[in-house]
């Protein structure tokens, strides 16, 4: 009886959803070289781990935005036809209709870089250069009044940007 047959027999006894222990593995994963998976490793941590080499300023980002983003997100990130990216500060309080934007809601600036690089522009994602992603991130932060007009963002400065709602999140516990 093979290992797999043993596992299946155990699972059959315990039934669907059993947690039959796997004593061994076929070991069919191929060890990946770092350079092989580097291009896939596009997640960026809040501490900046994963940010690539490159930089961009709000002014450079304005040009990227005009070419790639404005059709969906409107002039200066005002939104329409799709999500607004600017404004909404002060709308999170009870009794208001919350407008959740990068400026009013997002807790980490690194998330902007991560998301834009992987998912934007919608119809041609992963086409922006790293410099362009830094630049458009800088432009959106500038439009939200979070960084100055001439602030250049890179792997060192982006994680240090303090977002207005960075203290606005608490981990869930049951019963809330």
């Amino acid at each position, binding site marked *: 009886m093979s290992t797999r047959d043993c596992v299946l027999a155990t699972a059959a006894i315990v039934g669907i959803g059993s947690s039959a222990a796997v004593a061994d593995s076929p070991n069919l994963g191929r060890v990946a070289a770092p350079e092989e998976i580097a291009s896939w490793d596009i*997640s960026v941590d809040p501490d900046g781990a994963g940010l690539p080499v490159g930089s961009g300023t709000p002014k450079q980002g304005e040009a990227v935005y005009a070419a790639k983003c404005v059709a969906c997100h409107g002039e200066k990130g005002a939104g329409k036809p799709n999500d607004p990216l600017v404004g909404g500060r002060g709308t999170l309080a009870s009794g208001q209709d919350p407008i*959740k934007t990068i400026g009013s809601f997002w807790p980490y600036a690194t*998330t902007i870089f991560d998301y834009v690089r992987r998912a934007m522009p919608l119809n041609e994602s992963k086409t922006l250069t790293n410099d362009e992603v830094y630049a458009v991130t800088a432009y959106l932060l500038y439009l939200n009044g979070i960084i100055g007009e001439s602030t250049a963002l890179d792997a060192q400065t982006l994680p240090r940007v303090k977002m207005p709602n960075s203290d606005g999140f608490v981990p869930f516990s049951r019963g809330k």
Partner: protein
Amino acid sequence: MRNKRSAARLSEPDAAGNGLIDRRIFLGTGAAAAAAIGSIVSPHTAMGADPLPVAPWMRVPGSPFVGYGQPSRFEDKVGRISASPPNAPGTGAARTPLHRLDGMITPNGLHFERSHSGIPDIDPDAHRLVIHGLVKRPLVFTLDALVRYPIESRIAFIECGGNSRLLYQQDPAPVNVQALHGLLSCAEWTGVRLSTVLDEAGVEPAAKWLVAEGADAAGMSRSVPLAKAMEDALIALYQNGERVRPSNGYPMRLLLPGYEGNMQVKWLRRIKVTEGPTMTKDETSKYTMLLPDEKSLQFVFPIEAKSQITQPSPGLTMQGPGLYEISGLAWSGYGTITRVEVSADGGKSWATAALQHPVLPKALTRFRMAWRWNGGPSILQSRATDDTGYVQPTRAELITRRGINAYYHFNGVTSWAVGESGEVKHVYA
């Protein structure tokens, strides 16, 4: 919904107010039915009826075999409904027609979908799954390799964290159960335990989380506690016996039983083991619950106990007074449903419904209740209890705690008002 015995009067004991009856009345066994036997009258003795016709499909051979079967052409109203934002036809959600289904399993063609940049057309031979980050050996897997691993099945519901969000609104949305609660489905998911491939890669002691990423154009990604990954997560390759549908992650998806659907990353291409959460877009700006104190609850993972009545429900008009079966679904991401209660008087009185077996943890549970509708105004509700002792709250209780801007994880009681005409409407009660 079936009208069991129109206007037949039975001397059954009531289980709760406004006509709820012990469901054993339907089963022909048990005290309730025994008490009723002898008082059943046959109301439909036909006099002078025409002979039943022999239908044309009994006179000629039917159609030949096909490779992959489809539902009857008469079932063409049974379908998902979808909505997308402007400029993004593949973004958005398609909802399961819960009011047109029965049992606990969702057919694959009707399983709900939520996609963030369309459904990728993935060549399974070209697809790769990478495991890396805080592991001793970063690994690459092909689909052919994964199918050689020990395979397990879990019957599990998946519910979008944004399901039922319309019930946070001030006024009841005049829509049906599909539009309100249709981001909910249940299937038998079959695949490889995630812990198996993580063990093969060798997780480092500092690791507490992982980030899972899809191969769609959005590269949808979510952080998952490592403990959940090791507990019962699957790399699902099969859905109700066939390969996972493209809309549900073909050729492989992450299955995290009981957790909000967004985390169960479809088109899974990469798992990076990490020390902390990555704080992706969908675990910060989305899938967080804004409370009245301006704080947002983050990492709301398991779905709390919840239930709703699917039959009758809006659009399924009652066919006159008589005996009906009330049926619905209950589920909990924390465990197993232990009790479902039904009310026909807006929560004044409750009767315990029958739970249809199998009753499985983190799966949809079908409940049933007998109801003699007297033709008068009624408000139908259900509430679920799970094996942690948690009882599904009323909508008012939930809104008091969370306000109306929490958006996600609404699990309060839903109310259906039945009018004298038989029309069923969504109301707050």
